[in-house]
């Protein structure tokens, strides 16, 4: 596990065995600073990318990533395998912190600044990401109507609130709330069904 982490300083995509990530988190829980370092080497590019996409400002994304790893260091002991997928746990820590940070700072609505990347390309998935392209979630997202899918993606990937999504889509707030709800219900039915 340690060897794999050293040989692969780049984050490993979906193909990486989840157990290795679990082992790293277990070692972090035992107070192993080296394990936190290996976890950082393995996951920081992925997690920084997620933070940056949500907060849009590198200096804030850096704070979010730093705080997230301190939180991982403190909370790894309370993480248990039944807590679910370890990658999803790490994603959650970064996303919730990123979302908190932008809510606190107040955010200008992300513009279509090409430097920042358009906040949403709601109908296009990164085709390079084979795990999503092949996955059940992709198939189930395709079954949603366009508005529902846009809402789910703008919220999860870009961290927008109901109100921000409404402004972005030029749609009434009530409609956005209902698209999110119906989108969630349909996704769950499709994924769990």
């Amino acid at each position, binding site marked *: 596990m340690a060897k794999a982490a050293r040989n692969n300083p780049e984050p490993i995509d979906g193909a990486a065995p989840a157990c290795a990530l679990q082992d790293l988190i277990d070692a972090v829980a035992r107070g192993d600073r080296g394990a936190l*370092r290996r976890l950082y080497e393995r996951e920081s590019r992925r997690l920084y990318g997620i933070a940056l996409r949500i907060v849009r400002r590198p200096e804030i994304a850096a704070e979010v990533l730093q705080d997230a790893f301190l939180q991982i260091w403190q909370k790894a*002991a309370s993480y248990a395998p039944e807590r679910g997928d370890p990658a999803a746990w790490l994603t959650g820590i970064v996303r919730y912190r990123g979302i908190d940070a932008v809510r606190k700072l107040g955010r200008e609505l992300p513009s279509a600044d090409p430097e920042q990347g358009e906040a949403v390309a709601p109908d296009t998935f990164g085709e390079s990401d084979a795990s999503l392209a092949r996955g059940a*979630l992709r198939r189930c997202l395709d079954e949603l109507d366009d508005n529902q899918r846009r809402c789910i993606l703008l*919220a999860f990937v870009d961290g927008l609130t109901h109100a921000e999504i409404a402004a972005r889509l030029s749609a009434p707030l009530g409609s956005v709330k209902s698209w999110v709800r119906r989108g969630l219900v349909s996704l*769950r039915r499709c994924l769990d069904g």
Partner: protein
Amino acid sequence: MIPENSEELDILAGEYVLGVLDPAVARVVEAALAVNPELRRAVILWEERLQPLSALAPPVGPPPAIWNNIAARIGETGGARPRLWHSLALWRLSAAFAAACAACLALYIFLARPAPGPSLVAILHAPRQERPAWVATAGRNGLSVQALAGAAAPRGRSFELWAIAPGAKKAVSLGVIPANGRLQIAAFPQALRQGGKLAISVEPEGGSPTGRATGPIVFVGSLVATK
């Protein structure tokens, strides 16, 4: 507040994971996660379902200073080991304490009513809390459940008592607990002769309309043999 209806609770969990909730509502959900296992499960499931979407944010190399800051901070704070030890020890201590409580109460009830004493006793408490909230005794005289202190169902709702036999997947209703917090059942359910668990859920007034628990389980306890 956190909805009792599982469908509404699940949608709220999904909205929380998406991050669309107002910060004030998100704080309420976060606080409830610590005490509401159903909500916690729902949030974990949504995090897992939506995890593949996180790949849509392209990976970016973070500034090198970040790791140095993290390393400096974890060096200073002395590491996670004491916290782990602390939490595990606390957990064990509280489990031991709860077991000791159960044993003492069982002994007390057994000694206080020698003949025909109850053969099983359960102390029900809120999940993850150790303060006893209800006591149940079961034996030849049937089953009786009594609130220990101020456990009242929310307005317009009823507490319903459920039996979960050892190894059983489904809970069987033992009846709605009257507003005075006492329920006496003449016939002790066969399935519980070897122990099992008792649970109390919050249901619409008059009890679950479906025969299965529809609201959250708010108290739970294991039946322990007294002799």
